[in-house]
């Protein structure tokens, strides 16, 4: 929840961190007596808006539930070494453990084909899933925002060219290209992040472009242009704050699909084989025909973990989106 609470102010008032200096902002709320400076006034207004948005978020029960699940998963991932010792994942150190043990008091979630505890693998797998999901999303958001703003801001041949590229990536199924990229690059977590990041930004770019176009038609940008503002100035001080709320709302939704993409690539055998990942566990399960051999615990829990986290990100994302885009709230 800490994550979403800090993103709330910027969701509602994207310019907050850009335009107000940290020094003035701290004195802001205290200037109740005497004439308040414009900055302090603006800060107060933003604080009030943030509080209001936080309240709206708390009213969204599904969003709050998703947030709680996310906190739990983040904690588990962060403290994985304390919860399950690394040696529990080492095949050579579990030779005395029973293989394919169904869930019992001794083996809460059962064991795999090497006698490893599945719960330990799940705990460590949370790390890769979250890291890849977040890093790939960050990459996708940066590319998507840059390309979307460029396509919306620049006209003529350059803008047309960028639109063509966005359109291409929008049409091309990202998994196919991600498969190709992760097959030709060195195996590893970074490769997976790059493969997902490079192939999943077009949706964001499309939204950003639409928002940029609507912002461009506003009078304050025309005024800035008349006053001689350059491309960089307009993009940085006017367009970026206008598109950020939508980008942030989109971020949380994208994390979910990035996690699914990671597990799919790992399932196809393109993941980092030295790391635990939920997709890798399911690949191992398929390799030993767990589905037709009756090892249901080998398949059920890793998938449930993926669904829970993706659903949590989606619910939080929808709640944030409803705040960033109030027209959706009525629906």
């Amino acid at each position, binding site marked *: 929840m800490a994550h979403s609470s800090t993103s709330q102010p910027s969701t509602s008032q994207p310019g907050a961190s850009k335009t107000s200096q940290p020094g003035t902002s701290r004195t802001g709320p205290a200037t109740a007596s005497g004439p308040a400076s414009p900055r302090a006034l603006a800060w107060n207004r933003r604080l009030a808006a943030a509080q209001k948005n936080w309240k709206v978020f708390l009213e969204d029960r599904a969003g709050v539930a998703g947030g709680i699940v996310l906190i739990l998963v983040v904690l588990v991932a962060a403290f994985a070494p304390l919860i399950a010792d690394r040696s529990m994942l080492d095949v050579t150190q579990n030779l005395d453990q029973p293989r394919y043990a169904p869930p019992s008091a001794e083996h809460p979630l059962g064991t795999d084909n090497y006698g490893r505890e599945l719960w330990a693998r799940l705990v460590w797998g949370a790390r890769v899933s979250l890291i890849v999901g977040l890093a790939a999303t960050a990459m996708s958001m940066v590319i998507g925002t840059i390309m979307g703003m460029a396509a919306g801001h620049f006209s003529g041949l350059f803008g047309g060219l960028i639109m063509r590229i966005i359109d291409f990536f929008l049409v091309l199924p990202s998994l196919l290209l991600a498969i190709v990229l992760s*097959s030709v690059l060195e195996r590893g977590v970074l490769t997976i992040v790059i493969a997902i990041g490079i192939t999943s930004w077009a949706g964001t770019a499309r939204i950003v472009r639409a928002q940029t176009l609507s912002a461009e038609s506003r009078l304050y940008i025309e005024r800035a242009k008349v006053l001689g503002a350059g491309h960089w100035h307009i993009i940085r001080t006017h367009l970026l704050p206008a598109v950020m709320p939508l980008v942030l709302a989109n971020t949380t939704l994208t994390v979910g699909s990035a996690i699914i993409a990671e*597990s799919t690539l790992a399932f196809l055998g393109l993941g980092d084989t030295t790391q635990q990942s939920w997709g890798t566990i399911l690949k191992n399960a398929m390799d030993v025909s767990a589905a037709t051999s009756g090892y249901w615990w080998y398949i059920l829990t890793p998938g449930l973990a993926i*669904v829970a986290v993706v659903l949590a990100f989606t619910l939080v994302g929808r709640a944030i989106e409803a705040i960033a885009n109030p027209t959706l709230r009525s629906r």
Partner: protein
Amino acid sequence: MSVNAETEAADPQSADGREDIDAPPPGQSFGGYLLRKVGGALISLLMVVLLGFFAFRILPGDPVQKIARERQMSPEQMELLRAEYGLDKPLVVQFWDYLVGIFTGNLGTSYVYRQPVSQLIAEYAWPTLLLTGTAAILAIALGLWMGQLAAWKRGSLFDKLTTSTSLVFWSVPTFWLALLLLMIFAGRLQWLPTGGMVSPGVESGSLEYVVDVAKHLILPVITMTAVVYAQYLMVMRASLLGEMSADYLTTARAKGLREDDVRLKHAVPNALLPTVTLVFMHIGGLITGAVTVETVFSWPGLGKLTYEAISGPDLPLLQGTFVVFSSAIIIMNLLADLIYRQLDPRVRRA
């Protein structure tokens, strides 16, 4: 994967798909429109061809070295392999060979199968077409039908149920759902076959053959339908919600039409139009879903071929499936744009 599905579904403004990118200027002639669309698709195809070449050549990692890592190979053998696949020639020559190959239907030779890639693809294309075609028809029918009902009864229990079900399905990885279904219906209950397309010994062409293929088809089709229908549902729901307050509906009700007629004869046809583009767009997602679904169910199609190309690694085969899959999707989108213009008179002569 369906990265933009959720954002599109959640944002009713984008129910009309890529219109904000590709909206034809009003009053444009059909010839101009056709030229623009076909030109755009050709550029996309060219980009696929370029990507298909450069992704496999420029990026770090010598393909032969990669093969050598998987199995024992002497330097001489590696040289031989390089010569066999033309990897020792200058890049420009390789590119020219590749271009000529693409236009003459020669996509190289598979490392693993030792067969021409184009021949393999032609052989494996039909099962994929059967699988994705059946799943697409089911998903579109189910998704659009439930979507319009959900929108019409917005806020009702049915709406909440279908919307949350589609959210859950959206969060489910395709391959996991496939594994679950395989585990329950083929593993535990043993109602359906565990994989493949035909049982061994069944004669091709007989009625028994058709029934047998249908049995093998059930689980993969259910998996792919379940994953995709939710996206159609959300698109249709958003699209119909956009029509709900339109004046012509008030008129229809004022005429005394039954509510069902207002919905099915007035609102739905209009809401259906913007979904056409998206329906075709999501077929791309369906095709990539085929990669994991065919892998789990050993369905002998292009998806399984892709999986085998990955695990080889069989780079010419992977290159071939990538180019063919992507081109098919681009052509599908072009068709969608052209059909859309024919269907929607507002776009034709706005």
